[in-house]
C-alpha cells in the first residue's frame, strides 16, 4: 500500500500517479538515499570506533569531521585504476558492479511508513534474500579474478559463510510469515500495531540478528576481509573507486539487514508520537549502532567455529522455534 494507491491521487496527478512513474521516482530516491546513507554510516562508524577507543575520530575535514567520507570518496575517484597483470580482466571489472546492484534492489519492498513504500512487492523479503545471494557470487568473482592467494581464501570463505547463514536467516523469518501468513513487508509491519513481534518471537529475533551480521560479513564474523589474517580479504587487489563500490555494497547490505529487523521484530513504523518514517529510521540506526558497537569490542571467530556455530547451533534452534510456533498457532 503506497501513496499512489490512494483513490484521489490518480485524478490529481493523472499520469504521474501511475505505477510506472512511482516506481521510477522511487528508484531515483533510492539512488540518492543509498550513497548519502553510506557516507553518513562510514562517518558514524569511524566516530563510534573513535569514541570507543578513547579518541575523537575524524575532526579536521568540515566541522567535527562531517565531510570526511565525502572527501574520501572524492579522493578515491581521483585514484589510479590499477588493473594488476595476470588478472581475469572481465571478471575483475564486472565484480564491483554486480556487488552493488542487489544492494540497491533491496530497498524496494522496505516499508518506511504506511504511505512511503516504493512497491509493496508481494514476494516481499524473498526478493531481498535472493538478490543478496547475487552479492556473494560477485565477491567470489572478485576474489578469484584478482589472482591473489589472500583474496581467493577470502572469497571462498565468504561463499561458505553466506551459504551457511542463509538457512538460519530464512528459518528465523518463517515463524513471522506463519503468524501473519503473508510475505508482504507492508502487511507484516501493519500486523504489529498491537504488540511487536520481538515479544512473540525473541529467539527468532536473536537468530535473525546473528545471521544478518554474518550475512553482511560484519563484526565477529568478518572473516572475509579479516585484516589481521588475509590482509584485506577479497578486495586486496582493488584500488580507487572499485574498492569504494565494495564498501558501498557492504554498508547498504548492513542498512537493509537492520531495516528488515525493524520491520519483522520492532514494529516497522509504529511508535507513540512521531510520524512513521522517523520511527523506522530511528530503530534502524539504533540497530546499526549496535552492529558497529559489536564490531569494536569482539575479536573474530575462527572459520571452523563459524561453520559449527551455523550448522550445529543456529539451524537446530531455528527449526525447534519454527516447530513450537506451528504448534502454538495450531492450538490457538
Amino acid at each position: 500500500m503506497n501513496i499512489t494507491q490512494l483513490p484521489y491521487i490518480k485524478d490529481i496527478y493523472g499520469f504521474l500517479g501511475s505505477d510506472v512513474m512511482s516506481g521510477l521516482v522511487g528508484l531515483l530516491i533510492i539512488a540518492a538515499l543509498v550513497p548519502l546513507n553510506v557516507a553518513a554510516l562510514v562517518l558514524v562508524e569511524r566516530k563510534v570506533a573513535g569514541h570507543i577507543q578513547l579518541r575523537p575520530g575524524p575532526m579536521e575535514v568540515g566541522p567535527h569531521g562531517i565531510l570526511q567520507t565525502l572527501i574520501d570518496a572524492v579522493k578515491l575517484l581521483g585514484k589510479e585504476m590499477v588493473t594488476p597483470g595476470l588478472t581475469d580482466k572481465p571478471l575483475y571489472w564486472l565484480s564491483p558492479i554486480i556487488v552493488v546492484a542487489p544492494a540497491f534492489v533491496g530497498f524496494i519492498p522496505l516499508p518506511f511508513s504506511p504511505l512511503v513504500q516504493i512497491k509493496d512487492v508481494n514476494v516481499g523479503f524473498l526478493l531481498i534474500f535472493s538478490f543478496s545471494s547475487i552479492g556473494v557470487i560477485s565477491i567470489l568473482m572478485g576474489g578469484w579474478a584478482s589472482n591473489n592467494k589472500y583474496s581467493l581464501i577470502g572469497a571462498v570463505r565468504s561463499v561458505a559463510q553466506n551459504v551457511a547463514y542463509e538457512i538460519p536467516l530464512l528459518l528465523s523469518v518463517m515463524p513471522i510469515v506463519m503468524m501473519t501468513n503473508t510475505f508482504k513487508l507492508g502487511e507484516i509491519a501493519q500486523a504489529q500495531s498491537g504488540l511487536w513481534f520481538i515479544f512473540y518471537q525473541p529467539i527468532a529475533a536473536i537468530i535473525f540478528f546473528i545471521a544478518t551480521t554474518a550475512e553482511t560479513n560484519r563484526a565477529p564474523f568478518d572473516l572475509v576481509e579479516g585484516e589481521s589474517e588475509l590482509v584485506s580479504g577479497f578486495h586486496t587487489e582493488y584500488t580507487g573507486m572499485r574498492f569504494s563500490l565494495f564498501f558501498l555494497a557492504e554498508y547498504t547490505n548492513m542498512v537493509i539487514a537492520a531495516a528488515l529487523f525493524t520491520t519483522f521484530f520492532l514494529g516497522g513504523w509504529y511508535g507513540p508520537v512521531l510520524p512513521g518514517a522517523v520511527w523506522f529510521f530511528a530503530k534502524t540506526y539504533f540497530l546499526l549502532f549496535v552492529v558497529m558497537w559489536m564490531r569494536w569490542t569482539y575479536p573474530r571467530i575462527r572459520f571452523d567455529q563459524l561453520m559449527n556455530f551455523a550448522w550445529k547451533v543456529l539451524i537446530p534452534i531455528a527449526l525447534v522455534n519454527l516447530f513450537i510456533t506451528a504448534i502454538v498457532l495450531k492450538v490457538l
Partner: protein
Amino acid sequence: MEVKGSPICLPSKGYQVEAQESPAVVGFVPVQDLLNLARVNALWPLTFGIACCAIEMMAAGVARFDWDRFGIIPRGTPRQADVMVVAGTIPHKLVSTIKTLYDQMPAPKYVIAMGNCAISGGPFSYDGQYAIVNGADKIIPVDVYIPGCPPRPEALLQGFIKIQTKYTKGIIDANRRAEKAARRAKK
C-alpha cells in the same frame, strides 16, 4: 617549466608506474585543486613498519596522538594506500620488498622517510657497514623526511601535515611563481 597544476594522477617524479593511467582532467584548475585537497585530507598510509620507528608510528595512531583526526586510516594492502611511511632501517634483504610495494601502490602516492635510519642510515651507518642501505631515497623517491631516532609521534603527524601543505599550497605557489616568471620573461 610552466607548472599548470599537476595532472590528476601524477606519478612521483618520473618513477614509471606499473599500469597505464586513467584519463586525467588536466588544466581545469578548480577541479584540480579540489582533488588535491581531497587527496591530502584522506591520506591512507600502508602499515609497513620495519623497526623502532614503527612503534612510534603505531603510537601516532593511538588515542593520544590520534591520526584518525586527519582522516588517516592505515591500510594493509599497498593497492589502497596513498602514503608509504618507511619507518626504520632498510637492510639489503628488504630493498626488493620496498620496491615492489612502492610499485604496487596506485599513483598519486607519497613517501615519508621516518627516522634517521630511513633518511641516511642513522646510528647504523659507518663505512664498515655491510647490512643496510643508507637512506630510503636511494631506492624510492621520498617526499618528506622526519628526523629523530625514533621521531616523536607529533613529528610524524607534522610530516603528514607537511605533505598536506606540499600538495595543496605548494602547487598553488608553484603556479604563481611560474606565472610571475612568465610575465617577467615577456617584459
